[in-house]
């Protein structure tokens, strides 16, 4: 009986939301969009709901495009995006009388990492791209030891991969011989044990077990990522319909507050201050 109740409860809840949408609307925030921003939205929403009982925040992923689309369609209050809004989307929004406002909530910086014993300190974007395409095959070609390069990449649908593909590979294909790991943590684990390997991770996942490599001579530090000097970084956005009001505004302010930015840092991104 209890199990049945557990099963029925969500159904009933959904029903009640549908029936009384207008009643609940004042206290509900719907967030959709980028899976890169998702962890930040999730953790900050949990904390926000704890301190604001009565506010309900529902969050789903689906990618930046879906987030902005949901905002334009009015099915979300906040659309998360790991990129800026595109011209096409602005036009579509204009046609529907929607005015999306971007709020930069964090920076995302992806850094190349190697084994601690690897002498290579700096790689250019060009070299990284060729390594990932499988065209540079030995560390000695880029100033390292005479060792084969083992390329570690991420699953093609992860946000981290997306940044790497766009900012380093410029849409060239990753070699099919590249290894695949399913998370930032797994990449660190693999690289820390393999002196042949190179991988890439979000800046927040860096620890002492691996060595970061500078890109184009710029150190991948929080400061350089924030200033935009470090080339493999991008801002993360939450879009709202018009200038946010009420609890949506309150929530965005929370994300931008000290507590909110602490969450950003904890989730592996670069906080804004």
């Amino acid at each position, binding site marked *: 009986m209890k199990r049945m109740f557990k099963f029925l409860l969500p159904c009933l809840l959904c029903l009640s939301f549908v029936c009384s949408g207008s009643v609940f609307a004042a206290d509900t925030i719907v967030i959709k969009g980028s*899976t890169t921003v998702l962890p930040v939205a999730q953790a900050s929403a949990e904390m926000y709901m704890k301190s604001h009982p009565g506010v309900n925040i529902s969050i789903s*992923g*689906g*990618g930046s495009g*879906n987030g902005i689309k949901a905002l334009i369609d009015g099915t979300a209050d906040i659309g998360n995006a790991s990129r800026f809004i595109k011209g096409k989307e602005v036009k579509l929004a204009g046609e529907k009388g929607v005015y999306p406002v971007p709020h930069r909530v964090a920076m995302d910086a992806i850094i190349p990492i190697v084994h601690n014993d690897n002498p290579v300190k700096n790689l250019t974007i060009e070299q990284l791209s060729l390594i990932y395409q499988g065209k540079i095959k030995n560390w000695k070609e880029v100033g390292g030891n005479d*060792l*084969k390069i*083992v390329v570690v990449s991420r*699953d*093609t*649908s*992860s*946000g981290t*991969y*997306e940044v790497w*593909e766009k900012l380093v590979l410029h*849409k060239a*294909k990753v*070699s*099919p*011989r*590249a*290894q*695949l*790991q*399913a998370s930032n943590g*797994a990449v660190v*684990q*693999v690289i820390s*044990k*393999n002196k*042949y*390997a190179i991988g890439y991770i979000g800046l927040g996942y860096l620890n002492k077990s691996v060595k970061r490599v500078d890109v184009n001579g710029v150190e991948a530090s929080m400061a350089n990522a924030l200033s935009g000097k470090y080339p493999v970084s991008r801002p993360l956005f939450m879009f709202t319909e018009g200038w946010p009001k009420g609890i949506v505004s309150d929530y965005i302010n929370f994300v931008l507050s000290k507590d909110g930015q602490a969450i950003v840092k904890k989730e592996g991104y670069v906080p804004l201050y």
Partner: protein
Amino acid sequence: MSRRVKEIIIKNIFLLVALVSIIVLALIIIFLFSEGIPIFNAVSIKDFLFGTEWYPTYDPPEFGIGALIVGSFIVTILSSLLAVPLGVLSAIYIAEIAPPLIKEIFKPVIELLAGLPSVVLGFFGMAVLAPWMQETFDLPTGLNIVNASLLLALMAVPTISSISEDALYSVSQEFKEASYALGATRFETIARVIVPAALSGISTAVILGMARAIGETMVVLMVAGGAAAIPESIFDSVRPMPASIAAEMGEAPFRSNHYHALFATGIVLFFLTLAFNLIADYVSHKFKEVGSATL
């Protein structure tokens, strides 16, 4: 309520319970197909199965799972080569040779191996086996076919061993007695009488063990390395089908071509395990020993 009515009610309750699993299975299959088939609007079945370019998120995307199928087969075959002798021989030892005390210890330990969560095995392979293998054989990577096959073999051994063991037990006592009566030694009895009599059960065990290996996800995701290319040596990385599905499904946009392609990969996997089960069924009937010695 009369006894007869009660009987009918109870009978139907049992029928309903039994139906649940069949209905669920049917629903899963329907879902699998309805979500997987649409990919064939974007790519032909031939290109999907035999194409070796797997770039689902590029523009234009390419959906060829040839390299993934090869990856699945190669780790399955290699792990069977390791697991079959281990599983069958240990079953023979436990069923025929071991003294009762040792049997009492071995049997539960091997069964415990089956209960070991695969993520634990995978982590062991990643953190212990891979660095050791890389160091010892001076390889570029320890996350390779051999590593994955070793762990898969470890997972298949309990399946193979316990089913083979049941098959060996069910060989009737009369056969053994007859063999000994003819002056055969213990080894001759095992090799010429007991094992042949239990062959159908042993074959079933082997095939089910292989099915276990081909469907296993976590281990291959963690230790096979995940390179979506046809391997050139057994120390190369591969990406078996389940690993690809597990790694990519979480973030493939709902009902996109990538999503459908992953479901279609699931269909291929489904057909493969189905084939393994049908073969197992066929073998267990075909080579059934006549007499009382059957599984």
